[in-house]
């Protein structure tokens, strides 16, 4: 006997005190936050920032981003996520409603290349009001162009859309920052995957 999947439904505009309470100032513990790798995690510490932009190019104020990534050696954490952990957690969650520019932000380390991939990347999931099913994408890094050029997943994407998956590095006084804007629609619509 097969069981039909339960349909996906939107997170709606009021997910904050269920999913990201501390970020939004509610007095309730988090299970995850924007810190994907704590200060003791090995590897190159980086910051990821971006906006979610709608079909008019307006930043979305009620989106939530989750990321899941390998550590600096390309291994996924199998330990339970604990926000008290100062090491590598692997999972992060951030809403876009607490920043003046509706940015999401993650503190993490640059992932190593996982065993069955050919370029380092981070899994990204987008949830928001106005989306009945969440959307999967990937963040690749612009400072490894030769590696990216050999990546079968990137190569499976039409050449003129590949850039939407590649975060742009800036070296700032507070460390390297990668910018990754997610365009839901338009000429620069981000590539989303059927995972």
């Amino acid at each position, binding site marked *: 006997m097969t069981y039909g999947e339960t349909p996906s439904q939107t997170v709606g505009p009021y997910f904050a005190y269920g999913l990201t309470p501390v970020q939004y100032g509610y007095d309730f*513990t988090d*299970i995850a936050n924007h810190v994907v790798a704590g200060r003791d995690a090995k590897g190159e510490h980086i910051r990821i920032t971006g906006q979610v932009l709608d079909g008019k190019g307006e930043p979305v104020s009620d989106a939530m981003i989750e990321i899941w990534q390998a550590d600096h050696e390309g291994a996924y954490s199998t330990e339970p996520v604990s926000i008290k952990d100062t090491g590598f957690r692997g999972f992060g969650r951030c809403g876009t409603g607490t920043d003046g520019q509706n940015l999401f932000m993650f503190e993490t380390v640059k992932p190593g290349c996982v065993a069955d991939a050919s370029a380092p990347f981070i899994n990204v999931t987008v949830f928001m009001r*106005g989306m009945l099913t969440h959307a999967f994408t990937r963040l690749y890094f612009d400072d490894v162009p030769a590696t990216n050029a050999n990546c079968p997943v990137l190569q499976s994407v039409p050449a003129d859309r590949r850039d939407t998956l590649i975060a742009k590095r800036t070296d700032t006084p507070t460390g390297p920052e990668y910018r990754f804007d997610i365009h839901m629609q338009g000429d620069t619509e981000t590539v989303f995957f059927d995972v």
Partner: protein
Amino acid sequence: MNGFKPRDWNSHAPYIAPGYKSTILRGPTKPLIALSGGISEASGPVFARAAIRDLDWDLTRNGRVNGEPLGERIVVHGRVLDGDGRPVPHTLIEVWQANAAGRYVHKVDQHDAPLDPNFRGSGRCMSDENGNYVFYTIKPGAYPWGNHFNAWRPNHIHLSLFGPGFATRLVTQMYFPGDPLLALDPIFLGTPDEAARNRLIAKFSIEKTEEGFALGYQFDIVLRGRLATPMED
């Protein structure tokens, strides 16, 4: 191969569902690109039972300040299963909802129904080794929204689950049987297949009802199944 069967798109709404206006500018418009995936999608975050504190699974108590929350107490039971009916054990379930008057604690919610000082409306629980979960709460009220003339959301509870991998992630809503607003709700109706849509409606259960305390509802949640049956040992 990422270890999971392909998502059953007949069970999920399209990204652009014009009846739900906000999808028009927010849903992706270009076709998804197939990703056979790998360990990245087959793996995912795990959460320890320690992440669930004593009252997290009891929304009738976890927001109390000076008394009982107002409204109809309910107890929601269910199983988390995969597409082959196998239990999904030890998976985190996060829940959030409006209060009995149809008002969320969220500061952006401007509906003029009253806030309940003794109800926060969020909590979490975890499925046990057999995939069973339970939480206590207050039946949420309907509330108006700006989608169309006289638009009201049916009573619903939001649920968020991970399952065994990043590919099995699900955020859904549980609805209540017999709600007249269901037939008018573009979010519920966004799922085109009627049988799939009806899987979003909990069943009233007199067996699960607790005498003198709370009405019982049964809500099973089915995540994507695995590609192959794992070996029992």
